[in-house]
């Protein structure tokens, strides 16, 4: 039966998270690293992004939720967009990369990809089955 699913995206795979950050113009560091915050305080994270101004951004693996979570010192947030918007952008790119990779592995080809005015991305993939 055909069906319709809604998935609340979680950042589960490191390689797609890394690619999402690169797509958005950031330079992720994959080694376990320290995220710098207020007065030089630090926390460890599996993936970090050094920011030119303000606090660093890190992604820390949460074994409970089995996903990466953003860690940063919000008091030092100096980016042009709010942190919620930043995380949403990363999550959207992550979702797109995951969908593209998983469907390509299953033999699907992209037949349409467009960016909508509301900021959503539409993707159609097809496959001919013998």
């Amino acid at each position, binding site marked *: *039966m*055909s*069906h*319709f*699913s*809604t*998935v*609340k*995206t*979680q950042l*589960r*795979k490191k390689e*797609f998270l890394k690619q999402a950050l690169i797509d958005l113009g950031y330079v992720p560091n994959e080694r376990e690293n320290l995220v710098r915050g207020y007065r030089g305080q630090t926390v460890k994270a599996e993936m970090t992004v050094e920011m030119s101004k303000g606090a660093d951004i890190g992604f820390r693996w949460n074994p409970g939720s089995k*996903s990466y979570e953003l860690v940063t010192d919000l008091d030092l947030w100096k980016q042009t967009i709010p942190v919620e918007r930043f995380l*949403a952008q*990363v*999550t*959207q790119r*992550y*979702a*797109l990369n*995951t*969908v593209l990779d*998983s*469907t390509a592995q*299953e033999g*699907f080809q992209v037949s349409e990809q467009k960016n909508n005015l*509301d*900021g*959503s*991305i*539409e*993707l*159609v*993939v*097809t*496959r*001919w*089955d*013998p």
Partner: protein
Amino acid sequence: MRDLGPSYMPQRTLRFKIRQDGRVEETVEGLVGEACIDLTEKLEDALGTVERREPTSDTFLREKVQNQTIPAEIH
């Protein structure tokens, strides 16, 4: 077996809408039975929790057609 070419093969179509907050809406077309679930399970594993799963309108359409043809065969 003779290759009948693409025009004789069923086309599988997956439609995705990736919203601004990262939520993914997926519509599967042209898949029958368990294949439908198998195909997308892998993908949903990498993406996250499925909040909602419901049959698409073409499933309802097929059921409607069946309801109409069965009495016709009895008479």
